[in-house]
């Protein structure tokens, strides 16, 4: 399995991860199509909370269309089979199945790791583990 992880609390809120994610996956300059959540906690305590998919597979378990499958070490959505019912969005324990009005299928991290080298704060890492 591969999964994106968040280490520490040094996120500076630049959102490069979201933008690059959207550019790579959709060729769209649109941070709203990134598969990472960055929540600002201001004025206090003055931190960003970053939420990423840990590839738990709950989305696949609840999908009535069986549109989410394990492929190349991560759970991926087959957009052709997705009906856009939103069951996975509701079921996601981390709140990281995103929707956008342009798209039927939700947006989900596929652990591609593109964002990792461009996180200047070293918050994002890609963990690769043997099949559990």
């Amino acid at each position, binding site marked *: 399995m591969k999964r994106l992880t968040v280490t520490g*609390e*040094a996120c*500076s*809120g*630049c*959102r*490069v991860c979201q*933008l*690059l994610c*959207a*550019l*790579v996956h959709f*060729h*769209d*300059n*649109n*941070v*709203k*199509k990134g598969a990472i959540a960055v*929540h*600002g906690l*201001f*004025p*206090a*305590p*003055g*931190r*960003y909370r970053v939420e990423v998919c840990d590839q738990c597979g709950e989305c696949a378990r609840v999908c009535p269309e069986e549109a989410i499958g394990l492929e190349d070490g991560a759970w991926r959505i087959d957009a052709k089979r997705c009906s856009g019912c939103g069951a996975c969005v509701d079921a996601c324990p981390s709140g990281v199945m995103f929707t*956008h*009005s342009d798209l039927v299928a939700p947006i989900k991290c596929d652990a591609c790791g593109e964002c990792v*080298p*461009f996180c*200047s*704060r070293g918050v994002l890492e890609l963990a690769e583990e043997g099949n559990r």
Partner: protein
Amino acid sequence: MKDARHGYGGRVLRVDLARGTHRVEPLDPELARDYIGGRGFVAKILYDEVPVGCDPLGPENPLLVAAGPLSGTFLPCASKAHLGAKSPATGGYGDANVGGHLAMEMKHAGYDLFIIAGRADRPCYLVVDDDQVAVRDASHLWGKGSLATESALKRELGEDFQVATIGPAGENLVRFACITHDFGRQAGRAGIATVMGAKRLKAIAVRGSRGFPLADPGAVIRVGKEMYRQLFALPGFRDWTPYGTAGVTDWVNRVGAFPTRNFQTGFFEAHRDIGGKALRDRILVLDKGCFGCPIPCGKYSRVTIGSDEVYVEGPEYETVAMIGGDCCLGRIEEVAYVNAVMDDLGLDTISGGNVVAFALECFDRGIITRSDTEGRDLRFGDLESVLWLTRKIARREGIGDLLAQGVKEAAARLGGGSERFAIHVKGLEVSGYEPRYAAAMALAYMTCDVGAHHNRAWAITYDVAVGRDRVEGKAHRVIELQHLRPLFDMLGVCRFPWVEVEFEPSRYADIFAPVTGQRRSWEELLELSERVWNLTRMFWVRHVPGFGRSWDQAPPRWYEEPALSGPTQGKHLSRDTLERLLDDYYALRGWDARGLPTPEKLEQLGLGFTVPDLERARGAGT
């Protein structure tokens, strides 16, 4: 050029606050071609649309918010929005710049420019949510601090809205009010927030989901990644970022250019207790950055004074200089606390610190007395004095009402010789460099197009390198910087990768083509920046009767009084040196000795449409 679609939101939003109506127009492709974006849009629209004789606080003065073609896309520090209006601080061209996420969000909603006209009957705020635009009642927000307003609007509308707001100082029309965005970024200078206050516009909230098209997304990803990797490899990426702008405090003191005691001297004994290291070691919570920024200069901090715990983004260098040095507060905790108070009241800490320091000196010299201060003594270095003045100014109570006009106007009314130490150019208070023995930096302040601001030409390093009172080469260097630095404001990106980390600026031209589909060399872009510089000059010529050389003058303190202490003790520039600098500057710019552009220069820069205003001014002057 076929269209202005790639790299742009593609639309202009016009709002009329008096009627509560709005209109969406396509972005004019010629405007994009000839003025690029950001500051270029602000300069052109203000020139075209502000009527002569317009009261900066009147309904006909438009408030502009502009993004650039590189804002919000994948390259380092693509965060910048540019705001503008006829300045209530100076009566001339006014603009201010802010990072955070505002420009990105505007373009995601499909807009490059907001043009906000008129004055609302009652307090209001503007909401832009993709295609839905509304002017809503803000009576529940009026009177609230900047941070509370931003929090309230995010609760009301959603945390993914980006908010720009004024505080009570802007509502009360203090001429150096600032706009706050993203819990601590400011569009601080030239009183653009005062224009918002005059319009009864408390805040602007924007959310966009559309994104915007790139000419060649694959190439943007490739070149953008190269740019990030190049930046990561520079030594400054690791060395500069921990301390941000406040890291320069030691150096500025070492060269005796740190504004201290209302610019009486250039060295502050306690500077190590207010600089970047003190900030990081004692009060830092988080390195907070703007959109796309890998070198976050926002030093988000927490301090407790008495029983009051506050959070503040900063202090950044300018605040350290103007609240720390200029008001002589010698502990980073005190500087950060005043920073938080000014931010929440919505006061620019640069002008705010300068005005407070001016008032402290007036009290020292008996020009302001206890009869003006409710019987209290005011002293440099006294936190209570600084806070008392700050709050009086924001509320415009008593002596604060006079000081709220800025040092130029306050000195004119106070008299008593205070004009000699009112530290401003064109009515805008000088920022955090004491240039009385730094010729290029002095010239930079004298000729900056919004009044005394460092950011158009931070030339002090050149003075230190080549000889501080030398005249030769200084005007050339200042002009070069006045084209280079504001170009970043046209593109919609931050200049810090270049200024602070020595990133090669022409890389922005490399990514301009895949973003916009237009190939422009860095040299061509610099020529457009020269066009904009001359256009903002012509705004002054058009709007200010008798404008010219007499407006480009330094505060007398810089040529009349030697510095009291520190590395520049006993030094100052002569009046003659300053006049020679102006002669050189005008000649190199193709302007006449009165400081007016020549018709030939304007034609050459594609500004022929401004020549009638020039002829009118010349006719009136003879």
